[in-house]
């Protein structure tokens, strides 16, 4: 019946029906509501008004969707939650340990009137010198008879404050510089990365130690807290800049970045909207983990007598002062501030790992740490 002889003519069998409406049934990618039949108006005004309201609420709902997802994953991570709890407790204790007051010429206004501990951390001879822990002084007293409990709690204000502020400021320097270096490349990249290399050539703590005396005469920085912060920012931003630049080198080759520049999106918007958000996750993780390092560095500076004024209730400075007492057999003077540092650094590391897992469940945190070294 049919012609079974071999032929060299093409096109005897034709596949038709692509243009029919029923082919859209098999078009598994189209949504069921797709209207293939009939031309749609280019503006497609139909149905837009009716759908407007539910869309609005849906939009609201999924804006939080990703962060909520990450928070959900974070909450399931028990170690991270314990770390977070420790940090929160420490922060609350530090804030509410003693009243915070702002003094002007005439008035003294108490911003935070709650006082959890009865003694002023700076007031000497509230008890006998070097007294061991008791009900009256749960952490004992130091060489001047000051209450250790109050000093450890209030010391959290310095330590936590330095840790958070120094890391945030370092991020504010490191992220823009790293992003610009990575995205534009060329001589901008060379200049920024050579500065980073020069700073990296010094050991972290040695550089901080060298910077503090340079900064100390500057009057604006005032009482030591900001000196320490600036020293830690100068040494801290290089890590974030280098990490972010590396990530951006790969992100900027992605097609959505090309697509954005094909749309005519300005470079700064491309960096802000497309490049940095897709590259910043490891930097955020690194920053969280670095809070611990920065606190340790601040404590080390305090221990060396740099930065904060002597006698201030900073954990590192307390350890430093306690050395002599330790030789005399008064263990409690160094044990409690040391324990506080240990707890805080441990907690911040647990949180950092938790954030890492929550932001990107597939990324290996040890990988990030290796990259930093």
């Amino acid at each position, binding site marked *: 019946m049919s*012609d*079974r*002889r*071999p*032929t*060299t*003519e*093409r096109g*005897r*069998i034709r*596949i038709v029906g*692509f*243009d029919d409406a029923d*082919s*859209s049934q098999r*078009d*598994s*990618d*189209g*949504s069921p*509501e*797709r*209207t*293939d039949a009939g*031309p*749609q*108006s*280019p*503006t*497609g*005004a*139909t*149905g*837009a008004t009716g*759908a*407007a309201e539910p*869309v609005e609420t*849906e*939009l609201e*709902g*999924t*804006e939080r*969707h*990703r962060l909520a997802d990450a928070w959900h994953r974070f909450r399931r991570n028990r170690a991270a939650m314990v770390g977070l709890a420790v940090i929160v407790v420490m922060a609350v204790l530090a804030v509410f340990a003693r009243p915070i007051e702002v003094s002007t010429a005439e008035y003294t206004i108490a911003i935070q009137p709650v006082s959890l501990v009865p003694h002023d951390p700076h007031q000497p001879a509230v008890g006998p010198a070097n007294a061991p822990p008791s009900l009256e002084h749960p952490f004992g007293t130091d060489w001047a008879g000051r209450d250790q409990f109050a000093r450890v709690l209030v010391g959290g204000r310095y330590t936590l404050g330095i840790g958070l502020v120094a890391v945030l400021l370092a991020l504010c320097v490191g992220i823009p510089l790293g992003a610009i270096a990575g995205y534009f490349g060329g001589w901008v990249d060379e200049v920024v990365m050579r500065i980073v290399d020069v700073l990296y050539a010094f050991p972290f703590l040695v550089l901080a130690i060298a910077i503090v005396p340079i900064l100390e005469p500057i009057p604006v920085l005032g009482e030591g807290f900001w000196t320490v912060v600036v020293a830690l920012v100068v040494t801290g931003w290089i890590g974030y800049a280098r990490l972010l630049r590396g990530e951006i080198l790969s992100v900027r080759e*992605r*097609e*959505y970045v*090309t*697509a*954005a520049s*094909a*749309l*005519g*999106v*300005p470079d700064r*918007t491309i960096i802000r*909207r*497309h490049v940095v*958000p*897709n590259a910043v996750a490891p930097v955020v993780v690194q920053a969280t983990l670095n809070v611990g390092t920065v606190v340790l560095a601040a404590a080390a500076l305090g221990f060396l007598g740099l930065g904060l004024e002597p006698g201030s209730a900073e954990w590192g400075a307390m350890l430093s002062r306690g050395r002599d007492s330790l030789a005399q057999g008064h263990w409690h003077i160094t044990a409690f501030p040391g324990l506080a540092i240990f707890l805080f650094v441990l907690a911040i590391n647990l949180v950092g790992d938790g954030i890492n897992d929550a932001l990107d469940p597939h990324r290996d945190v040890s990988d990030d740490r290796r990259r930093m070294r």
Partner: protein
Amino acid sequence: MTASDDEPLLRATDLEKHYTTADGFLDRLLGRGQTVRAVDGVDLEIREGETLGLVGESGCGKTTLGRTLLGLLDPTGGTVTYRDTELTNCARAELRELRTEIQYVFQNPMASLNPQLTVGEIVGEALSVHDIVPPERRDERVRDLLETVGLRAGHASRYPHEFSGGQRQRIGIARALAVEPSLIVCDEPVSALDVSVQAGILNLLSDLQEQLGLSYLFIAHDLSVVEHVSDRVAVMYLGKLVETGTTAEVFDSPSHPYTEALLSAIPEPDPCWAGDRIVLEGTVPSPTDPPSGCRFHTRCPRVIPPAEYDLEEDAFRAIMTLRTRLADADPDAGLEALCSRPDRSEDLTATLREAYDIPRRLQDPDAEAALSDALESAAAGDLDAARERLASAFETPCETSEPALSAGPDHHPIACHRFDDRYELDDAETDASIEHDDRFARGSQP
């Protein structure tokens, strides 16, 4: 469809894009880098409302050409003109304005959408950058666009990872449409998609063309897709166009040997179909060092024999293959470079002839003398002498002079010497050879 003789929408003249493999200061200083001629002198016109299909095998420079046309890559030479504006020496700000006229749809819909943004933000970005729609109407416009490309308005608040490949490609198209362009460069828009989804995207593109009067540059390596969507077709090989013409002209009367080979590779569903595939010899030459003359001559099944000999096409092709092999061979490799098992016991020249399908005796006595001379030196292990002998004896016009894209019938330029008047003698012979060679079953009427 509207092949008017008006000014073309987009015109590229002698466009070149070269990359250098030099990496870093030291390479540049020592001049170690090689130049990759990804696009090497392309002339192209796209008229209003038409679809120009650009085909060619992988690595021939299709994507580079597409991106250079958009100004995403800076051309090394040549010009691109959109209407009356020359893109190649535009200021950045001007170029940014022109982005609203020419848009790009990417090959891989999985990679071309920012995973951090919602679909609404992705599509709406163009609206805010170019201030096309006032801010209060942008949401509405985004929903309209999504419906235009066959998605639901409610999809605006979702993230790209929640969609399938075909849906993502629709989002990519919606993003391109947002700026209301008149030309869209589609870089293999369906090759990453499932076959059933391909048809949907192709139909969407042609619907949009009808509604909005768009022009497309449709880059693809799938010829059946190109045949389906294109008004005109340009065939590209190794950074150069070898043929342009209307789809009917190119598909029904294939003319350039490379196009013939490409067309023969289209799968045919007819079980009784007995047409032969033209299998090209060897691999694509490196674009760092493209062959002289016609770039296809190293693989061309219909390379033109030297005028002084009376040679059969097949025999000359076989000799050309041997020549190419000799040229590529490492001079120290010896005979192993030419055939896999040089058998000492037999007549080596005969073995070589067999390995390359060269007839035992060529028709033309002069050619035969030259060939056996060269084969003897090859058998003796002197590959250099053999190479030189062959090169001087069998020099084809295809390697000495570069074919221009203006040869051939009007509106259907073909860059092949077979369609050049200067080689008319060979044309007559071509017709004769076609009649006894049923590989070129469609027949060619040059």
